[in-house]
């Protein structure tokens, strides 16, 4: 069996935040956002879902995986290189390979920039060679938006369309890993299905690995072959999605799945 290191790997991640002092004496208290979290993902492995509720540490984990924050302990490695020690060139290569789609379609696009410039931004900042204009048109088409969108502003689009723009931007540098931080949560139910299908389709067509952070079990079940359940900063269960969802071992996972409302048969 060929052993290749996963493209993106998190090992033993710890992250804590200082709480404001409530008394002058005594040690300063911390909030443990993440404790000993391990994760890995590679293109072609079917993607991984990160399921957790509020306070689980999933947003913190996303920021660490994207190298916009540093862990207090543990490492995030890209191609076996610790990102905390990466050179500017290595960081740039990492950013080309790992991109993100954020939760709020109304906050993730700069309201004062035209859509064309928004989608082209990674191409410019990451020095991606080639015709940027053509690439932007190609990307907009891939997410189902018309070419004329390049000259318009975000406020002229609906939530679902803005999320498509965000996806187009994320795909611009031709990444290998796409991290989605609750990309469907802020969308209307009908639109959610469309964007979910879009993500699934693109992942399959482009050979992308999806890292889907979501509290929506249905989306994770459909888009990710593996899943990790986060509770209060720790991974309480991990495994093949089908396996974990049909036979959860951890009591929290069981409670979580039992709480999902369902239609009467």
């Amino acid at each position, binding site marked *: 069996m060929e052993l290749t290191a996963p493209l993106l790997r998190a090992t033993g991640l710890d992250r804590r935040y200082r709480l404001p002092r409530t008394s002058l004496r005594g040690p300063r208290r911390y909030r443990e956002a993440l404790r000993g979290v391990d994760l890995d993902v590679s293109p072609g492995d079917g993607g991984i879902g990160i399921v957790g509720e*509020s306070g689980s540490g999933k947003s913190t984990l996303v920021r660490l995986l994207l190298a916009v924050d540093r862990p207090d302990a543990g490492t995030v490695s890209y191609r076996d290189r610790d990102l905390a020690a990466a050179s500017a060139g290595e960081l740039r290569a990492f950013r080309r390979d790992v991109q993100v789609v954020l939760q709020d379609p109304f906050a993730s696009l700069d309201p004062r920039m035209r859509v064309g410039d928004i989608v082209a931004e990674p191409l410019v900042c990451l020095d991606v060679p080639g015709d940027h204009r053509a690439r932007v048109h190609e990307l907009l088409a891939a997410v189902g938006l018309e070419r004329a969108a390049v000259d318009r502003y975000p406020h002229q689009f609906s939530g679902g369309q803005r999320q498509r723009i965000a996806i187009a931007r994320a795909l611009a540098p031709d990444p290998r890993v796409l991290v989605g931080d609750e990309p469907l949560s802020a969308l*209307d*139910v*009908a639109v959610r*299905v469309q964007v979910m299908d879009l993500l699934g389709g693109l992942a399959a067509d482009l050979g992308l690995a999806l890292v889907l952070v979501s509290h929506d079990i249905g989306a994770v079940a459909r888009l990710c072959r593996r899943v990790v359940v986060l509770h209060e900063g720790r991974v309480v269960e991990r495994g093949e999605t089908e396996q974990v969802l049909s036979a959860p071992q951890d009591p929290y996972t069981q409670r*979580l799945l*039992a*709480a999902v*409302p369902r239609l009467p048969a």
Partner: protein
Amino acid sequence: MTLLEIEDLTVRFGGRAVVDGVSLTIDAGDRLGLIGASGSGKSLTALAAVGLAPDDAEVTGRVRLDGRDLIGLRDRELAPLRGGRVGVVFQEPQTALDPLMRVGRQVAGPVHRLTGLDRRAAAVRAVELLAAVGLPDPENMARAYPHQMSGGQRQRVGIAIALAGDPALLIADEPTTALDVTVQAEILALLDRLVDERDMALLFISHDLAVVARVARRVAVLAAGQVREEGPLEQVLHEPTDDATKALLTAYRASAWSPSWS
């Protein structure tokens, strides 16, 4: 006995009808679920019915509470009816609560206004209500501020406030949408129990079919401001006749998960 009768309710914003001729009846002990996608007018229907539509909205039609028409009543006359007969639970526990007031006072205030109990008795009743909505250590909880509580706890306070006037009808507008799924399950169980124990009618609004199915016995499907279909829960969900209902069901099945799945 008919509690709330909404007849041909229309809500316009600058000429555009967001709620377009909606008619619904809620009897005592009813549990009606109002479902629809966002923008279908479901929240606005319920809010307009009790006089909580935005100021720039134009509301026409008839809304009879205990036989008395509410449309056109001034807020002064409407407020006691609203709290006393109809309690409303809102979506965002964050914004529905005053961040600068202890939660005990926020519950005691409406109790005092609506039941005629004096302030001391109202404070005692408030603690009782906080206990009734499942808050642990209600005496101490009453002294807490909203920001010191979790989202689920805040929503329980919101429910306590809605129950302050011992209403006959509880309107819940997307009460669990902003909550985690485990917390949602608890709150839905709570509402289920309270509605039963206090013999209230329930008008539950949500875009989530499964959530509505948990608490409602009858459902009305709203799309583009109109009631497209109405009937017993099982019937509407298993034998939908309208396209809007079918679309909601299709979207649900395409994105939801259930244990019998896979």
